């Protein structure tokens, strides 16, 4: 059990339970997320990964359990609550307006203004350009998002999280339906998050995608955490796969 006042721990969740009707989607779930740590949250479809992400993003509320943020107990009732704490979530295929330029997407809802009501488009474009360069994204701030590749879109959302100084970024299946090049790009973006000391929960069902970048792996099966293991305890994704399979068999 991790000490809740440990300065290294950014977020702790304790005994989270969530039912959807008769379905027990998340069973007594506990997790600590350390600062600047990347957690690979693994599991098959319906394992409860997305349910957990939705709970800490404020989209749904747990039936029981507590969430501690930097040692303090918090209630996350909405996306705005989560964002105020510094939690940004990137949902599958969501979070970007396709017909809007990249810069307007990054600042949507939090535009820099002049004379209170007017957007400062110059500042938005300049800041966006700097941010995209930092992330190694070869996209113009004025380019409409629909012309970005899948990997670039994930990059734009990650850039947004970085700009607004999120402390925890949740990526819900960020590599799903991406090309090999797209997956590589996303993994590079996540490494940039780590460099900025931003924690990340990387949700996926593909061990190979998350293995190169994660510090720790958590495996969910039918709403239950059946494995939590540090990266230095496994030598390859194949070994991790074998451990997971042996746990599921039990």
């Amino acid at each position, binding site marked *: 059990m991790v000490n809740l006042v440990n300065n290294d721990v950014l977020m702790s969740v304790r005994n989270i339970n969530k039912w959807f009707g008769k379905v027990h989607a998340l069973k007594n779930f506990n997790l600590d997320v350390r600062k600047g740590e990347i957690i690979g949250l693994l599991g098959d479809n319906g394992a409860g990964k997305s349910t957990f992400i939705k709970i800490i993003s404020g989209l749904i509320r747990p039936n029981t359990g507590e969430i501690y943020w930097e040692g303090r107990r918090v209630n996350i009732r909405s*996306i*705005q609550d989560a*964002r105020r704490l510094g939690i940004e979530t990137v*949902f599958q295929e*969501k*979070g*970007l*307006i*396709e*017909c*809007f330029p990249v810069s*307007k997407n990054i600042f*949507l*809802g*939090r*535009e820099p*203004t002049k004379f209170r*009501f*007017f*957007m400062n*488009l110059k500042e938005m474009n300049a800041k966006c350009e700097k941010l995209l360069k930092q992330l190694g994204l070869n*996209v*113009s701030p004025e*380019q*409409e998002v629909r*012309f970005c590749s899948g990997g670039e879109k994930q990059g734009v959302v990650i850039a947004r999280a970085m700009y607004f100084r999120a402390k925890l970024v949740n990526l819900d299946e960020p590599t799903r339906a991406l090309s090999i090049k797209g997956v590589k790009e996303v993994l590079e973006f996540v490494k940039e998050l780590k460099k900025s000391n931003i924690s990340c929960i990387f949700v996926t069902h593909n061990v190979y995608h998350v293995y190169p970048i994660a510090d720790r792996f958590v495996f969910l099966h039918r709403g239950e955490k059946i494995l939590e293991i540090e990266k230095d305890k496994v030598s390859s994704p194949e070994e991790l796969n074998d451990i997971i399979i042996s746990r599921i068999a039990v």
Partner: protein
Amino acid sequence: MEMKVLKRRFGLFFVNQLAWFVLIMFYAGFATIKPHAFLNFEIPVFLVYSSVHLGLLVLAESVALFTGNFDLSIESQVALIGMASGVILMHLPKESILSNVLGIILPILIGLALGLINGTFVGLCELNPFLVTLGTFMAYRGASLLIRPQSIWARELVPSFIAAGADPTITVAWFAVLLIVLGIFFKYTKLGNYIYAVGGDPETCKMMGVSPRKITFIAYGIVGILCGLATLAYAGFNKGVPINVALGATFPAFAGAVIGGVSLSGGRGSLINAFAGALLVGTLEGGLTMFNVSPDARKVAFGMLVIAAIVIDRFRERIRDAMLRPV
């Protein structure tokens, strides 16, 4: 490389301003056939002036379309605003400054209220925009006849109510200022940006803390204000409030918006180009009338124009996409 960029920029400009180019083409066509009529300076001025009232309804419809919704009730809003303000203004002293100020403000305020009624149902209660505005389309027109089942003419009203839309130069001048103000509003303000954003993807807006319900509510308020201004333009053009004011204007307003390139699925479009759509409708009507084309044949031509606009719009989007796609 420079030449390529220049070509691309010019191409994009042409594609974005297509409605204006088509308008010039039509006008030049009419002028070639009947030069003595169409090369007279008064004709284009009159065409612009006679397009202002429909133009305002095109702008109103465009704002509703930006949010991914639409408004079938705009013509009935004009009728109810006209009758309600007319009946009040009939009983005010005609020379008083206050009543003349009210002559301008009252229609705008009533328009705002009617727009917000639509906004409450479509935006705040998230009801289907087709059914809600179909309901208010009938209710507003019925209410206008309940208030007064006969026309109101200029001599019964305070002068400002008529004057705002009676003189072509004044009407075109304030309309031009309004177009510029709206252009700035939609391009540079946060609220203008959110109206497009809500039409582009309401779910994403919700996630980013922009409430689609509130923004849609406000957008319908703007639609109402534009209908209030349209009422002033109609009153000036007709020298009063006829009992059937703006009857059947909703669909030409839709057509104008579509011809002007406003996306029916929301999130995209420009009000200046939407007005080009209204002008095109006006020019076609005016031109065909001058050539003694029967009203029925004009309707056919008009319908064909709308279909052509949709087909051209499809190709235009493809060309635009190809030009915008990064190399």
